[in-house]
């Protein structure tokens, strides 16, 4: 009964999107923001949130025009089948790569902080298998899991932020607005891509019970994630100051080492933080795995995505193993970002919208 149940409610979609957007950015965002604008980093994060709202407006506009189709189908409808399939394959490659890199970062961090003697291959493959087990049960199962994980992740993180507040020195944020405007804009363009997982919205319309509210929920989620990001950046800058925030590879993990929970006997709080982060990364990797197999299902026009999940594991696993070290991983993410990152957020959806309007495709026209 459950395996056939592939529709999720709007609330579940919001939660899933929230987890996906949050887990990518949270660890490195303060460092990236400080690299661009030192103590003005939080301004960049605000601007990038607005940019993300703009992207999501375009994507949801397109998606709600074709409420029964995914990207694979409506791009084929709009731009002829071969072009549609090529674009979908691009999206497939992109999600594959992103998921693989996220997996690699996950592996590196777990090895560094929690399991120094376990081979990274084992850490990554076990994560993939657990995700695959979830993904095989369909999107609805992910939705329900997301509802549980949401509380497991956010109550601790918010209480941690409360504990950090006493050691935060807000004077570190001064002087305000000394960064030149061009740097601020460049930085916010770059950090806008921390929201790049909103491209999942291109695929999600047929999985939702009521696709009409897509835009509203996307805005709500992005606003909330943006708000938490801003607070996180301000707190990190306040604790470390801009120079040290730039130097730490994972400043948010470092944040955990600073706090003293009153009366606690725990010494290694960074490991504690890792647990919450792992849960949210699990949700992200399973999302990647799901949409990768989902795209292939739609391209091949088969009903069940179940048997396509396991073939995806070696692909993602091998991509994740390509980089030699953490520096190369972060580098290749940047290279990939520089060439592909914008494509599915802005130009391709825009072209699709324009062509669809000219050819009078999509639901808004049909109603008239």
């Amino acid at each position, binding site marked *: 009964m459950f395996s056939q149940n592939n529709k999720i409610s709007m609330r579940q979609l919001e939660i899933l999107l929230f987890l996906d957007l949050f887990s990518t950015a949270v660890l490195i965002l303060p460092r990236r923001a400080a690299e661009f604008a030192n103590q003005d980093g939080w301004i960049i994060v605000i601007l990038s949130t607005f940019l993300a709202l703009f992207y999501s407006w375009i994507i949801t506009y397109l998606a709600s025009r074709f409420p029964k189709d995914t990207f694979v189908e409506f791009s084929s409808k709009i731009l002829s089948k071969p072009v549609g399939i090529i674009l979908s394959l691009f999206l497939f490659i992109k999600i594959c790569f992103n998921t693989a890199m996220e997996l690699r970062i996950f592996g590196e961090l777990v090895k*560094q902080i929690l399991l*120094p003697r*376990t081979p990274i291959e084992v850490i990554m493959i076990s994560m993939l298998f657990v995700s695959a087990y979830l993904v095989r049960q369909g999107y609805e199962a992910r939705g329900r899991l997301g509802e549980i994980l949401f509380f497991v992740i956010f109550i601790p993180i918010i209480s941690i932020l409360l504990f950090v507040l006493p050691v935060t020195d807000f004077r570190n944020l001064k002087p305000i607005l000394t960064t030149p405007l061009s740097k601020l804009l460049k930085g916010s363009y770059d950090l806008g891509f921390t929201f790049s997982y909103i491209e999942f919205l291109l695929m999600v319309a047929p999985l939702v019970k009521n696709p009409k509210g897509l835009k509203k929920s996307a805005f709500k989620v992005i606003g909330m994630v943006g708000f938490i990001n801003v607070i996180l950046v301000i707190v990190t800058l306040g604790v*470390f*100051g801009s120079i*040290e925030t730039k*130097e730490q590879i994972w400043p948010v993990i470092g944040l955990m*080492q600073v706090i003293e929970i009153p009366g606690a006997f725990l010494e290694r709080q960074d490991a504690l933080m890792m647990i919450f982060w792992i849960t949210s990364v699990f949700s992200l990797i399973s999302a990647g795995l799901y949409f990768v197999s989902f795209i292939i299902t739609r391209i091949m026009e088969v009903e069940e995505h179940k048997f396509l999940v396991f073939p995806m594991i070696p692909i993602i696993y091998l991509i994740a193993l390509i980089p030699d070290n953490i520096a190369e991983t972060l580098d290749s993410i940047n290279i990939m970002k520089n060439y592909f990152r914008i494509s599915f957020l802005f130009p391709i959806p825009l072209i699709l919208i324009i062509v669809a309007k000219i050819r009078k495709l999509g639901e808004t026209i049909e109603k008239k």
Partner: protein
Amino acid sequence: MRKNKILVFIIIFILCMLTGCWDSMSIDRRAFIVAVGIDKFIFNELEDEPSLNKQINRYEMTFAIPNLQKVVGEQGLSDEPRFVKTSVGPTFINTYKNLEGRINKNAYFGHTKAILLGKELLKDKTLLKETLDILQRNNQFSRSIPVVSVDGTAKEALMANADMQPLIGIYISELFENNEGVNTRFEQRTLGDLLKDFKEDKGAIIPKLSIGEKDIKIAGAALVKDYELKGWLDEYEVRGMLWIKKNNQRLEVSIPYKHFYIAYHVSNSKSKITFYKEEEDIVCRVLVEAEGRLEEYILDENILDNKEIEKVEDAIEKSIKEEIENSIHILQKQYNTDVINIGKELERQDPKQWELVKDNWDEVFEKMKFDINVSINIRRIGQIK
């Protein structure tokens, strides 16, 4: 039937697979290092083994490990409350791995309570930089570990027999905790604070630990600039600095007054730094405000009188002002190091001006004029007139 057999087989197989964990480590196999002392290795012909006299041996590290059985009050095999081990090696990590060849347990730094830096190490720029790098890079070291400097070697300090708490590491961290906001003989610095000081201000002060007969004492500070020890500040010089640097401190001030000494308890203090220009020169104006109560006065003299209180206030203000000026003078002329964050404050308040002076900040700081104002309020005078 056949299906059940397969099921049983799978269950047994999974059970076997799930037992393994690469990183399993029983808690009793770990040696929890409570304090680490880091020194530069200097070969001593009388005491050390001749084989240690090699160029490659650069560090001498001392580790204090509590005898856990003794600490929790159980009868153990050994009566020692703690074990102190020293090891010599070329790099930090190598030295402590050498240690693992000598003790039967795994060294673990997750519960370290204090890091002690020896005098010779602080004088050596290369070694100090290496040390700070590993302390930050290795994630076992928490950023909230207190750091102290030792006028002598860290080894001696960890070997010291403090009778109130034999575990020197815990002793130091408790001393830090106790004195938070109360004591101004030193300023607590944690590992995180220090790393920040070094990177942002180029200079830092590290509380100084001295070894006594039956105890240890923390007072004064080592002044380190550009990762090199410049000199030591005594506790009065540190206190003068802290008037500017620290808010909400509580301390006692004693001053001579009419052939007697009177004591004043500060219950709350705050400082404010502003800048103004005087013919092209930047002048730093420091306003220190404090309130508190008069603890000791002169017998048979009436203090319940506003004019008299104002007189006493003036005397205290003057004494505090001298103390601050003395400290600033030493920082400016003797060490030329801005450890009171004047530069940072200027950057925050006047970024444009800071851009002009930041490249030769040392010279600007050396010549900078200070305009110090102290304002003291006596709120209470005790039970008699």
